[in-house]
């Protein structure tokens, strides 16, 4: 029963977060110095013309009514039309760019999790030895060096000096996508990789000191099996939570990498929209990434009791 209560409380918090972010994005549109009416009327329109257009578009109604309308439309995937160009529906823009961002983020989190757990375990097993110290130093660098410093440096090295990898994403790609995505994915993965390494190490160090490990040593369980099957399985749970939140951060944090490598994803789209004051696109980008972030965190919280019997039992 306690578990059901905890889950429903968590779900309620998720719903409130969703309302919060949708309200904030909606209000951003309200507070901007321009709206759909001023854009459609153009620069030369008189105040009356703008008023008339605003009335025709229904923008002069009370904001609470329009917020509910906005929510209903957004739930159906209707985010309005882009202000400029061909006035393309924002839904199409999102549908075009989101898969790219999601692919890059998914590849990056997979890489980060694999390398992070491996290095973290290695460092914990060889605690205070050379391996441990080098892993810790590397991960400190990974956390502190920003993406936009790392990106040009690596591009310079692998492209200009070695000529191995392309600098940017291209429309006419001559090789497989993998070749073009290698650098951006590696750079995006650097920070979560470092964080996951540190977390795995800390958790493993903690677990290796526990009594069941001593029991395993006494029983004569081989070292590798002891470290992996006994210790890592127990130590990896906080890491799973962190993988979930890191993935959310990657989905929203690919702006720099997408910009640096000209990858046509959601992040590039949002930045372009910002330099043009294209409010519907900005709102949709923020809302979509925000909702994904909240949903991922919810998912992780729901998965934990499934993965860890201790949590399940503590709450029943």
């Amino acid at each position, binding site marked *: 029963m306690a578990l059901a209560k905890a889950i429903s409380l968590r779900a309620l918090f998720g719903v409130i977060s969703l309302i*919060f972010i949708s309200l904030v994005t909606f209000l951003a549109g309200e507070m901007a110095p321009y709206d759909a009416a001023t854009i459609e009327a153009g620069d030369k329109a008189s105040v009356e013309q703008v008023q008339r257009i605003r009335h025709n578009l229904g923008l002069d109604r009370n904001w609470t009514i329009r917020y509910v309308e906005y929510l209903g439309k957004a739930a159906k995937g209707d985010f309005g039309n882009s202000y400029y160009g061909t006035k393309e529906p924002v839904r199409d823009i999102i549908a075009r760019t989101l898969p790219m961002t999601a692919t890059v983020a998914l590849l990056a989190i997979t890489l980060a999790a694999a390398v992070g757990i491996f290095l973290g375990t290695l460092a914990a097993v060889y605690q205070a030895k050379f391996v441990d110290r080098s892993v810790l130093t590397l991960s400190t660098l990974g956390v*502190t060096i920003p993406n936009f*410093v790392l990106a*040009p440096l690596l591009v310079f090295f692998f492209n200009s000096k070695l000529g191995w990898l392309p600098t940017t994403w291209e429309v006419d790609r001559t090789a497989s996508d993998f070749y073009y995505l290698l650098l951006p994915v590696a750079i995006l993965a650097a920070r979560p990789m470092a964080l996951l390494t540190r977390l795995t190490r800390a958790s493993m160090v903690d677990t290796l000191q526990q009594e069941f490990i001593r029991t395993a040593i006494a029983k004569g369980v081989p070292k590798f099996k002891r470290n992996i099957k006994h210790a890592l399985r127990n130590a990896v749970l906080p890491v799973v939570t962190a993988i979930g939140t890191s993935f959310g951060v990657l989905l929203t944090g690919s702006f720099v990498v997408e910009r640096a490598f000209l990858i046509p994803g959601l992040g590039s789209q949002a930045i372009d929209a910002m330099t043009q004051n294209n409010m519907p696109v900005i709102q949709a980008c923020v809302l979509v990434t925000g909702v994904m972030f*909240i949903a991922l965190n919810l998912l992780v919280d729901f998965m934990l009791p499934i993965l860890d019997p201790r949590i399940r039992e503590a709450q029943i």
Partner: protein
Amino acid sequence: MAGGVVKRKRDIFLWLGLGFLIALLLFAVFGPAVRTAMLKGTSPDLKNAVIDQAGKPHLSPNAQFWLGTDEQGRDIVSRLAGGARVSLMVGLIVQLISLLVGITVGMLAVFAPKWVANPLMRFTDGMFAFPDILLAILVIAIMGQGVLPVVVALSVSAWPSIARLVRSQVVTLKDREFVVAAKATGAPTVYLVMKHILPQLSGLLMAVSMLEIAGTILSESTLSFLGIGVQAPNPSWGSMINNARTEMTSYAEWLIAPCLILSMTVFALNFVGDGLRNRFDPKGQ
């Protein structure tokens, strides 16, 4: 004995970081003026006099332009100093705002009646529910681009962590003997907070502030790198890196200076923050 050695080793980093930050501060305050005076007469265009001493574009480092000139022929040392000014200013102002709001909210969450405290803490928790960059983007979308929107955007997302920290510390502090004793003498809550609780927290808050300023400077550079932060002709390390990046194939050396100064600043702030934390919060090691 071993503990003492470790402590001294950490202190070296603390002093190194502190030394770098003081040098950076002097560079930011006096750099632009000094460089302007030194480069007098080299530039026919003194419109953006402080930062933009125009020479020829892409000059290699020489006696006059120590680090060379950028794509518009501006002295890179002056640009770096101007960037330092922007970064430090944004970092300090945002931290000041975030401390003010964070301490107030954190204290209210402990001392205010429940109907104020609970919603306040829920709201603070809610601020963690989605990433800072999204909030920053919305604020900049409303306010336009420039230094002020960046400050507002970063302040909005900076205070909740301070509020949480203050709350968690004060919850235990308020039951300590010296606070209870002061309370028993009839001291009003405001006096308790100002005279007894805040001084206890100041060391920890100072340490955390260093780490947070590092984060703020990184965020400002990120926004400027993306072209939605500090706008030209104002200098910023982020936009310098972005400009150098676009010309990387022919002028790769131009990346080094801004990347290096930004990374070193972040490292120095982290060293100082960690050093201070080790001194003020021995349990947190």
